[in-house]
C-alpha cells in the first residue's frame, strides 16, 4: 500500500515537472492528465476512494476537456490540421505511455493487495463524506453552488462574441 503511494507520487512529480517544462501546450496537457491520474491513485492509496473517482471525473475529465476545447477554438482553419499533426507526433506519446504503464501496474498492485493485511489505511467511506457534506457543511455546499452559478454566468458573458455594433 505504501509502495503504491510512493510510486504514484513519484509519477505525479515527474509528470508535473514535464508539464511546466513543455514548450507545447498540448504536450503539457497530456502530461497534466497523467499527473492528475497519479494524484487520484494517491488519494485511493490514502483511503479516499470517493475523492479519487471525483479527481478522475472532474479534473482529468471535465476540466481537461475545457482546456482542450479552448485550444481547439483558438486554432481554426485549414492550417489547424497541419498544426495538429505537428503537435502530436507518435513519439510524443512514448513518455506519457511509460508513466501511464507505471500507474496501471501501481493500480493493479493496489487492487490485488490483501485488504486485511497490516498497514492498510483506514478508508473514509463516501457515506461518511456525504453525511458531513449535508450536515455541518451544508452552508459551504450552498456557497459552492452559488460560486458555480457565478462562474457559469461569468463564463457565458465573457465567452460570447462581441455584438456587431448597435443592431441587436
Amino acid at each position, binding site marked *: 500500500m505504501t509502495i503504491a503511494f*510512493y510510486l504514484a507520487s513519484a509519477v505525479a512529480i515527474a509528470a508535473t515537472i514535464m508539464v*511546466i517544462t513543455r514548450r507545447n501546450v498540448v504536450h*503539457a496537457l497530456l502530461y497534466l492528465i497523467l499527473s492528475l491520474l497519479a494524484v487520484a491513485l494517491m488519494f485511493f492509496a*490514502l483511503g479516499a476512494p*470517493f475523492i479519487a473517482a471525483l479527481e478522475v471525473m472532474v479534473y482529468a475529465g471535465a476540466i481537461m476537456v475545457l482546456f482542450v476545447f479552448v485550444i481547439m477554438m483558438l486554432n481554426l482553419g485549414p492550417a489547424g490540421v497541419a498544426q495538429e499533426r505537428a503537435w502530436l507526433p507518435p513519439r510524443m506519446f512514448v513518455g506519457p505511455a511509460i508513466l501511464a504503464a507505471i500507474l496501471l501496474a501501481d493500480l493493479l498492485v493496489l487492487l490485488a493487495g490483501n485488504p486485511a493485511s497490516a498497514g*492498510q489505511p483506514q478508508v473514509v467511506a463516501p457515506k461518511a*463524506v456525504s453525511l458531513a457534506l449535508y450536515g455541518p457543511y451544508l452552508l459551504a455546499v450552498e456557497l459552492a453552488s452559488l*460560486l458555480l452559478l457565478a462562474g457559469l454566468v461569468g463564463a457565458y458573458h465573457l465567452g460570447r462574441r462581441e455584438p456587431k455594433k448597435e443592431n441587436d
Partner: protein
Amino acid sequence: MAAVPLEHVLLIAGALFALGLIGLLVRRNIILMLVSVEIMLNAAGLAFVGAGAHWGQPDGQVMFLLILAVAAAEVSVGLALVLQVYRHFQSLDAERLNNLKD
C-alpha cells in the same frame, strides 16, 4: 492510522505546489499559467485529503470537494478570459497584456 505518514503526504503536496508556483512564475503562455494554478489547487487538495486520512475524518474530503468547485469556477471564467484576450490581441503571451502599464 494511515500507513503513509502525514509528513510525507505534506512534503509531496508541498513539492507539487512549488512546481505549480514555478510554472506560474516562469511560463508566459496564459493557458499554461492557468494549468499551473490548477496544479497548485490540486496540491492544496492533496494536503487536505492527507490530513483527513491521517485522522480518519471526512472533513478533509469535504474540503477537497469545495476546492474542486472553486477550481471548476476559476478555470471556466479564466478560459473565457483567455478567449477574449486572444480575440483582442491575437496572442496568448502574457507579456503583451501591458496596456495598463503605458
